[in-house]
């Protein structure tokens, strides 16, 4: 049988034609094994981490990445780094979506030269303390979630190998943050930050304790993004990965702030049926949802979509019909993770979908209201969520600058003072979110509106909220706690804080003891 190809009109238009079919050219034998056998012998399924690392082609000086969906319960980063150290790797760039206090063993790998430099959203605990005191020669690059997505997309952050822990994965690499079968008690819900790395990294290794039958649907990461799958006994400590449900605060000061924040939202001009919101996981943010709920019911207002790191409090509203849809880049508690698994209107999204500035339709740009926390706010409305009042790194940028820039009304909630530490200051230690993107600062002792938003100020005054200037808040705080001595630094830069467009917004210096 032979086809006359030249009879096809305009043959020159079809460049991809492979010529005539012939059995002789198609020599690959038909795979007649069972699905079970095929899964067992999947080429992506490798014996152990060593093999996966060797196959990935990782070399000294390359960039490796990790996600932080396992939070304080993460075993992946320490496990992989120990293996890389054992295998003799040097000078690696560790680019994690974030790091927490359980990652202090990285200090040894920094000292021994396995890690040359770090990129992350945040640092906490002993590792943060050591870096603030000059542990590393090359400064840590801090990126927001949206900024990291953009850096990955633009090639500024090129990931050679991504090591992504997953609570479930099949033999071909379909991975997710939960499982519909063979639940091992570990779930993290959304894999939003891992999705981004899986899509762009040159090689992707999924590390799972739970190998499930093909297809692991629904999946957070599709097999097309995955090169190798490794099964290990443990990927994390469930207790550290997430708590049952984020507890509702009984702290009267947080409740007071939350009540003010809810009133600010209700009177912002953005409280209408179908409005969109994002709430942080702090006590006051969570309580804000409770106060808002009462008025949503009274005024028959529903949330069009809730975005972000998602908590059980938001899920409750979804189940009550007060929130129509949830876009979830990171599930904060078990309640949220279970909802992602069971409710089809609770959608998993990637870091880029969430917040990348390269994407004009990015979800943060569709926000009416965001409620954010702060370690410090200064009289220029600049916000610090990264360094403590003692100058030491102890936080994470997260989606702070992304949501503040995107939301029509960005609200920062914070107590005026924490113990003897003032929250409203002349100059924040570290600028993470520029003041021009912050609209309202809500404290227990007054509400300040950015002068750039006279419209909002008028609305809040009309609603008889305790509006005052940010300078008044600052001097009130100082009157209570006294004048703080300035923190002393050396001239060594230990951290570079980037804004979401990859520009540098501030530098963190080594703290002088």
């Amino acid at each position, binding site marked *: 049988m032979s086809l006359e190809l030249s009879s096809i009109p305009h043959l020159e238009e079809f460049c991809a034609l492979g010529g005539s079919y012939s059995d002789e050219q198609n020599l690959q034998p038909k795979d007649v094994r069972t699905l079970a056998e095929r899964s067992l012998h999947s080429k992506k399924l490798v014996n152990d981490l060593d093999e996966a690392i060797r196959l990935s082609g990782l070399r000294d000086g390359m960039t490796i990445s990790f996600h932080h969906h396992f939070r304080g319960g993460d075993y992946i980063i320490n496990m992989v780094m120990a293996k890389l150290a054992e295998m003799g790797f040097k000078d690696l760039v560790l680019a994690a979506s974030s790091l927490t206090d359980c990652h202090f063993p990285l200090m040894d790998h920094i000292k021994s030269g396995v890690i040359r430099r770090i990129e992350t959203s945040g640092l906490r605990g002993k590792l943060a303390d050591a870096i603030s005191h000059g542990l590393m020669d090359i400064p840590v690059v801090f990126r927001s979630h949206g900024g990291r997505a953009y850096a990955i997309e633009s090639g500024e952050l090129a990931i050679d190998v991504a090591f992504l822990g997953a609570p479930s994965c099949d033999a071909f690499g379909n991975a997710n943050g939960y499982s519909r079968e063979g639940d091992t008690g570990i779930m993290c819900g959304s894999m939003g930050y891992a999705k981004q790395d899986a899509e762009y990294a040159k090689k992707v290794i999924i590390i799972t304790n739970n190998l499930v039958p093909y297809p692991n649907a629904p999946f957070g990461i599709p097999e097309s993004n995955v090169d190798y799958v490794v099964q290990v006994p443990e990927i994390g400590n469930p207790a550290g990965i997430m708590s049952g449900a984020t507890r509702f605060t009984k702290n009267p000061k947080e409740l007071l702030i939350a009540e003010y924040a809810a009133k600010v939202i209700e009177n912002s001009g953005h409280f209408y049926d179908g409005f969109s919101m994002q709430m942080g996981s702090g006590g006051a943010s969570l309580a804000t949802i409770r106060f808002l709920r009462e008025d949503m019911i009274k005024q028959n207002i529903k949330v069009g979509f809730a975005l972000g790191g998602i908590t059980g409090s938001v899920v409750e509203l979804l189940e009550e019909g007060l929130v129509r849809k949830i876009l979830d880049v990171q599930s904060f508690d078990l309640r949220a993770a279970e909802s992602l698994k069971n409710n089809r209107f609770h959608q998993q999204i990637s870091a880029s979908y969430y917040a990348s500035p390269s994407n004009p339709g990015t979800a943060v740009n569709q926000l009416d209201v965001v409620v954010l926390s702060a370690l410090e706010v200064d009289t220029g409305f600049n916000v610090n969520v990264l360094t403590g*009042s*003692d100058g030491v790194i102890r936080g994470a940028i997260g989606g702070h600058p992304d949501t503040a820039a995107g939301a029509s009304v960005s609200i920062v909630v914070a107590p005026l003072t924490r*113990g*003897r*530490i003032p929250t409203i200051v002349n100059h924040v230690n570290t600028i993470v979110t520029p003041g021009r993107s912050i609209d309202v600062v809500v404290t227990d002792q007054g509400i300040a509106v950015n002068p750039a938003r006279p419209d909002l100020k008028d609305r809040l005054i009309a609603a008889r909220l305790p509006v005052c200037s940010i300078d008044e808040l600052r001097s009130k705080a100082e009157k209570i706690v*006294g004048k*703080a*001595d300035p*923190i002393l630094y050396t001239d060594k830069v230990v951290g570079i804080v980037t804004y979401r467009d990859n520009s540098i917004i501030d530098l963190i210096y080594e703290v002088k003891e």
Partner: protein
Amino acid sequence: MPLDSLIILQEGTRLKIEKTAVAGTMESSDIMVTLSPGSVGGIEIELESSVEKQFGNAIRSTIQDVLTELDVKNAHVKALDKGALDCTVRARVKTAAYRACNCDSYQFGGQN
């Protein structure tokens, strides 16, 4: 015990720092002050504070001021601070000082 471990009250009653005394708690916004007879002469302050960098000097000078007001010239002060405000520091030091002197003839007036 050094002879100058004294509190001189306004009436002129002289009382010695007789023992180690504690005031305050380890809770947030409090300061636990332990006052004992001094061993080196003068006021010796050992401060551990969650806000050392920002307010360590302010706390030390408040402790010194209160002891001066009470005319205590020789004492060892150990203070564990959890972010206490100035008025709390003052109150805890006063309480510890009177307790250390076994004195309950308080002076409240004459401040304003």
